[in-house]
C-alpha cells in the first residue's frame, strides 16, 4: 500500500493495486461519521460497440444497456440486494454516466461488512428472462420521467446537435425501443467484458481505518477467481470535427423556453493530467466570461434574457469534449445573438487579469467546498482517476494557469463551426 500525501490539503490517500488488477484508493477523514464507498467500472452508455482480443467481430449491444445492467445487478436469485445493505444500516445506490458505472453505499457503521456486500453483489451477475422483462417496465417509466423534464430534454438535444455519430449524443438510459431488445445473454456478455477487476476501481472516503479496510478488500478479492483480463477494444464511429446540426428545437408542456448553446471541441484525445488541466482552464474561461459575478452575466440579466438558472459547464473526456451555456429565457433567439456578440467582444479584448484571478479563486473555493461532502469527493475523484488524472492536484493546476493560456483557449474554443443551439419551447 502506498501513501500519497497532499500537505496543503492535509489529506493522506492510500493506494493499492490488487493481484487481479483492481485499483483501490482509500481516503480516511477524521471526525466524519459516515463512510462513502464506491465501486466503479470504466463502462458507460458510450460503450455500445466493442471487440474482444483475438476476435475479429465487433459486438454491437442495445443503447442503454450499461444503465440496464446497473439496475439488474441489484437483483439476485435469492432476492433484492437493498435489504442486505439495509440490514447493515447502509444506504445503497448506483448511477451510470457516459463512460462509467458506479455502485455505492454510505453508512455510519459496519463499513467492512457493507464493503463485502458491495464487492460481492457487483461481481455476481444473475439475470433471468423474467426479471429482465420486469425491469423494462421500471426503466420505461424512468425514461418517461426524463421525457417530461425540459432541462434533460434541452441538454440531450444539444448533444444530438453537437454529435452526429459519437454515442455521447444518445440518452444514457436508452429508449423504450432500444431496451426492448435486451436479453440475459447480452447482459452476461457485457458483465463479463467490462466488470473484470482490472477495469474497475474501489474508492472509500470517511471515518475508517485504511489498513483494516484494505486487508478486508484483499481477502475478499483473493477468494474469488477471475479469468485473464479481457483486452477491450472499444469501437467508436468516426465523428466529424464540426457540429452535426446548428439548431434543434422541440416542444414540451412547459411555461417558458429553455435554451442551451454548446461548443464542441474539434480536437480530442486528452487524458490524464492534460485532461484535468484542460477542464480547469476551460472552466476558468467560462466563469470569467459568464460566471455570476461577470460583467456579461449582469448584462444578460439586465436585458431580461436570463434568470438565476443561467449556468455553464464543461466536460472533457478522451473521445469527446464540449461546453454548455444557457438556461431559462423568454427569448431564445435574442439570447443566442447576444451571447454570441459578447463572445465576439471577448475574443477581441480578451479576459482581463482581474476577471481571470476572480475566476480562478472561485474555482479553488468550489473545490475546497467539495472536500466537505464525501459523496462529491468520491464522484469527482473516481471520475478523474479512471481517466488517469488526480483531482487532488486541482489547486496546483489552477495556480499554474496563466492569463495567456486563458485567452488562447478562449479564442480556440468558441469557433462558429463548433457551435450548436438547443431550444425547448412551450407546446
Amino acid at each position: 500500500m502506498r501513501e500519497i500525501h497532499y500537505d496543503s490539503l492535509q489529506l493522506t490517500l492510500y493506494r493499492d493495486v490488487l493481484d487481479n488488477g483492481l485499483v483501490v484508493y482509500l481516503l480516511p477523514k477524521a471526525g466524519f461519521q459516515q463512510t462513502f464507498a464506491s465501486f466503479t467500472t470504466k463502462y458507460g452508455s458510450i460503450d455500445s460497440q466493442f471487440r474482444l482480443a483475438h476476435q475479429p467481430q465487433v459486438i454491437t449491444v442495445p443503447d442503454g444497456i450499461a444503465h440496464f445492467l446497473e439496475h439488474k445487478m441489484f437483483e439476485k436469485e435469492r432476492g433484492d440486494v437493498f435489504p442486505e445493505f439495509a440490514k447493515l444500516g447502509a444506504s445503497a445506490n448506483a448511477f451510470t454516466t457516459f463512460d462509467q458505472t458506479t455502485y455505492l453505499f454510505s453508512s455510519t457503521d459496519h463499513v467492512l461488512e457493507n464493503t463485502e456486500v458491495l464487492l460481492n453483489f457487483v461481481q455476481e451477475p444473475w439475470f433471468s428472462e423474467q426479471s429482465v422483462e420486469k425491469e423494462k417496465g421500471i426503466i420505461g417509466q424512468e425514461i418517461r420521467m426524463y421525457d417530461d423534464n425540459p432541462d434533460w430534454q434541452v441538454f440531450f438535444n444539444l448533444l444530438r446537435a453537437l454529435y452526429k455519430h459519437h454515442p455521447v449524443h444518445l440518452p444514457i438510459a436508452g429508449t423504450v425501443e432500444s431496451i426492448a431488445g435486451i436479453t440475459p445473454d447480452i447482459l452476461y456478455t457485457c458483465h463479463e467484458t467490462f466488470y473484470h477487476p482490472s477495469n474497475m476501481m474501489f474508492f472509500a472516503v470517511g471515518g475508517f481505518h485504511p489498513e483494516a479496510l484494505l486487508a478486508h478488500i484483499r481477502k475478499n478479492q483473493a477468494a474469488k477467481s477471475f479469468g485473464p483480463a479481457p483486452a477491450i477494444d472499444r469501437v467508436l464511429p468516426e465523428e466529424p470535427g464540426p457540429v452535426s446540426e446548428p439548431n434543434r428545437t422541440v416542444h414540451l408542456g412547459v411555461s417558458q423556453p429553455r435554451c442551451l448553446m454548446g461548443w464542441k471541441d474539434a480536437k480530442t484525445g486528452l487524458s490524464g493530467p492534460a485532461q484535468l488541466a484542460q477542464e480547469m482552464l476551460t472552466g476558468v474561461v467560462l466563469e470569467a466570461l459568464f460566471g455570476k459575478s461577470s460583467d456579461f452575466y449582469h448584462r444578460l440579466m439586465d436585458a431580461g434574457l436570463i434568470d438565476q438558472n443561467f449556468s455553464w459547464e464543461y466536460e472533457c473526456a478522451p473521445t469527446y469534449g464540449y461546453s454548455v451555456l444557457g438556461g431559462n429565457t423568454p427569448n431564445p433567439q435574442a439570447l443566442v445573438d447576444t451571447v454570441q456578440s459578447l463572445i465576439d467582444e471577448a475574443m477581441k479584448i480578451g479576459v482581463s487579469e482581474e476577471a481571470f484571478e476572480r475566476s480562478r479563486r472561485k474555482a479553488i473555493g468550489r473545490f475546497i467546498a467539495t472536500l466537505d461532502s464525501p459523496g462529491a469527493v468520491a464522484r469527482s475523484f473516481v471520475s478523474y482517476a479512471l481517466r488517469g488524472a488526480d483531482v487532488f492536484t486541482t489547486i496546483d493546476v489552477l495556480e499554474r494557469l496563466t492569463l495567456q493560456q486563458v485567452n488562447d483557449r478562449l479564442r480556440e474554443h468558441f469557433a462558429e463551426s463548433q457551435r450548436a443551439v438547443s431550444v425547448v419551447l412551450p407546446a
Partner: protein
Amino acid sequence: MPDLGTFITQTDGRFAVHLLSTDKFRTRYLALKVARPLHRQHVTALAMLPYLWMQGTTTLPSAREVLRYADSLFGASVRTLIQRRGHQQVLEVQATAPEVGTFNGADAVLEELESLVIQLAVNPAHTGDAFPSDHVEREKTLHERRIQSVFDNKITYALERSWEAACAGQPVGLPRLGYREDLRALTAASLWSLQQEVLAESDVHFYVVGKLHDEPSVAAKILNRLRQAFGDHGRGAAGSPVHALAVRRGEVQQVVEKQRVQQGKLNLVFRTGVSYGDDEYVPLLLANGVLGGFPHSKLFMNVREKASLAYYASSMLDGLTGLAVVQTGIETANRDKAYDIIRAQVDALQAGQVTDDELEFTRRGLTNQYRQVLDQPASLAEIHFSATLAGVERDVERLIQQIGEVDKAAVVDAASRFSLDTVYFLTSDAEVTTGA
C-alpha cells in the same frame, strides 16, 4: 472534541443565535433566518423580498457588487431564498466560505462575511422610502418566472399541487413562492414598507457551524449586531409553536389535472395530526419509513419491484404539518392499479403487518440518515431549526436514541394516524393542455 451536532443557543427577546463549534469541516456555514407567519395577503411579496435583497445593499448597490465582494472574502458564496416551514414563511440568507483560520487576518474576513449576511437583509439598496424601481421591476419578472418554473418540473409541480389541495384554505397550503397574479400590484414603495415590517416584527435566528473559539462571546457579539441591525424595539411575530394539521373528517378529495405529459403522477396525501413536537412523532417517522422511505419499504417493493409500475414510489413525512405524501410516476392507464397497491400497503401497515426485518431495516436506515446529518452543516441547522419552530428541544443524538427505542406496537399505533385526505392525479390528455 465530541461531534454530537449539539448547538449552543443564546437568545435575547426575538433574537436567537445558534452556534455549533466543530473543526471537521473545510468550510464555514452561516445562515440568517427571519420567520413570520404565512398570510395570503403577504405571501407573494414576502417571497420576493429575499431575492430583492440580493440585488444590492446601500454600500454594495448592485447584485454584481454583492457577488464580487463575496468573491473577495476567500471566494465565499452567498445566496438568499424563501422557505415555507409549517405555518411560517422564512426569509433566509445563507453563506459558506472556506475555513481559513490559519491565515493572518482570517478572523476579520469571517466577521465581514457575518456582516454581509446581516446587511443583505437589513440594509438593502433603496431610494427614500422605496426599493430602487429597476430592482423591483427586474425581480418581478424573475419572480414570475420562478413561480412558472414550478410548473415545468412535473414531480415538483405534482407535489406542490397535491400539498395545496390537501391544505386548501389554510396558511400552510399557500404556495412557497406566492401567486403570479399578485405581482402586478406590488410596488417599490409597498415592498419597502413590508420590508420595514419584516425588520420590526419577525423572529430572527442566526446559525454558524464552523471552527469557533469562546462561543459565549461569539454569540453575544452576534446578538448585539442583530439587535443593532434589526432594532431593539421590534417584537417577535412567529407566535405559537408550529403544530400539525388536524385530521379532516369527511370525503377524500379527488383532484385530477390534465396536461401534456408522457408520465402520470399519482400522489396520495395523508394527514396524521402528529408533528415534530409530539411524543408520537418518532414512531410515526418509523411507520412512514416502513411504508415508503427506503428501497426495502413496502411501496418500493410492491409498486416498483413486484408490479413494475413505477421508477419511483416513496412516502415523505413533513414533521411540521404532519402531512405524509406518497409520490409515484406511472403510465396513466395504470392509475387504478397503482392506487390499489398503494392503499393495500397502507392497510397492511395499519393492520400491523410489519415484519421484524422491515422494522429493523427502517430503524437502521433512519439512524444512518441522521448520523450522516452530523457530517452536513446545512442539514444540522435545518433539523435544529425545525425543532425550534415546533418548540421542542431534540437534537440529532436524542432523535437517534429515540429511533432505537421504539417498538413495533408503537409503530403500528402511529400508522393508524395515517388518514387519507387527498388523491391527486396529473394525467395526459391529448385534447386538453393547461397553461401555467
